[in-house]
């Protein structure tokens, strides 16, 4: 397969750390072609040194998110037809994260903030106890269900302007995780979560710009989760808590 004049003009970010520039490739168009297909074609047929990250190719693993024409997207589920402009596409590594090389962003700050936001379970029972039965019909559980399908792709984190202006901000995904754990009746200490999300980088930094919710590929609503944490921290404060 060779590139021809009918191909796509693809500008791909090349470089590592803060250094880099866009490099143009001519990629043949195919039926049902995704952005990840385009990147893979470049790596396989034009420049084997191109670095990028992917795993499942079906929108489950959250590995392949990149900036496509300035918008964060899961590239394996983004058809080029949806984003192509004047036969050209620009592909860059995710915003708000350090670049390892080319299209591969360093996800460490993103995952570190999941832990910092109290995103670990605080158990009430151990393995010898009976499993606690929960009704799926409680309002808390119904609300939790709207936030647990996160695939950790960091699209919301890349879309968020508060993250780019405040390095301490925990970000939409980590705060949404904290919200679902806060609502979990099996969590032993929701106060610890409120403490974690109400500090310098906490939920009150959010300006409700809504880019996280708009761009989330799984249709989740982190802005709603963050608003929930804001309400929970405010009501905890007025009840004399922390």
């Amino acid at each position, binding site marked *: 397969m060779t590139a021809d004049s009918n191909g796509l003009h693809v500008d791909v970010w090349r470089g590592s750390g803060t250094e880099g520039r866009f490099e143009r490739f001519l990629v043949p168009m195919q039926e049902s072609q995704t952005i990840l297909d385009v990147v893979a074609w470049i790596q396989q047929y034009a420049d084997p040194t191109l670095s990028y990250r992917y795993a499942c190719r079906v929108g489950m693993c959250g590995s392949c998110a990149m900036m496509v*024409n*300035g*918008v*964060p997207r899961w590239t394996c589920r983004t058809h080029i037809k949806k984003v192509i402009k004047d036969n050209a596409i620009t592909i860059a590594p995710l*915003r708000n994260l350090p670049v390892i090389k080319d299209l591969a962003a360093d996800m460490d700050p993103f995952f570190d903030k999941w832990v910092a936001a109290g995103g670990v379970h605080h158990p009430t029972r151990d393995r010898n106890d009976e499993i606690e039965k929960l009704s799926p019909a409680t309002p808390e559980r119904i609300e939790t269900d709207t936030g647990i399908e996160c695939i950790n792709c960091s699209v919301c984190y*890349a*879309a968020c*302007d508060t993250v780019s202006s405040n390095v301490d901000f925990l970000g939409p995904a980590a705060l949404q995780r904290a919200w679902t754990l806060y609502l979990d009746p099996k969590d032993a200490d929701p106060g610890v979560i409120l403490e974690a999300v109400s500090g310098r980088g906490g939920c009150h930094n959010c*300006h*409700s*710009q*809504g*880019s996280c*919710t*708009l*761009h989330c590929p799984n249709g989740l*609503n982190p802005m*709603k989760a963050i*608003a*929930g944490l*804001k*309400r929970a921290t*405010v009501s905890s404060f007025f009840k004399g808590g922390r």
Partner: protein
Amino acid sequence: MIRPHRSHPLWIAYLLHRLSGLGLALFLPVHFYVLAFALNQPERLDAFLRFADDPLVKVAEFGLVFLLAVHVFGGLRLLALEFLPWSPRQKTMAASAVAAAFLVAGTFFLQAV
């Protein structure tokens, strides 16, 4: 030029809220400074009020009321959004807030001219 990831109504609502807030923050010190003339320099206040009758100043006042309306409705929108459990219709609410702000400012403008 608004960057692609920001081109949606909620971000524009944020931008309007921030710009109107900054505009009002610049206006308020001047406002209080002029009001203080009533206490210690009434003749300067009268001179200012005559200046304020100028049609150009009236147009500027329209801008001021517009900023105020945008900021009030934007603030109500944020309070509703963050302190009431809200639905995906929020985008519609944001657009409605902007539309209502236009309506109030427009009504004032029509009465002023």
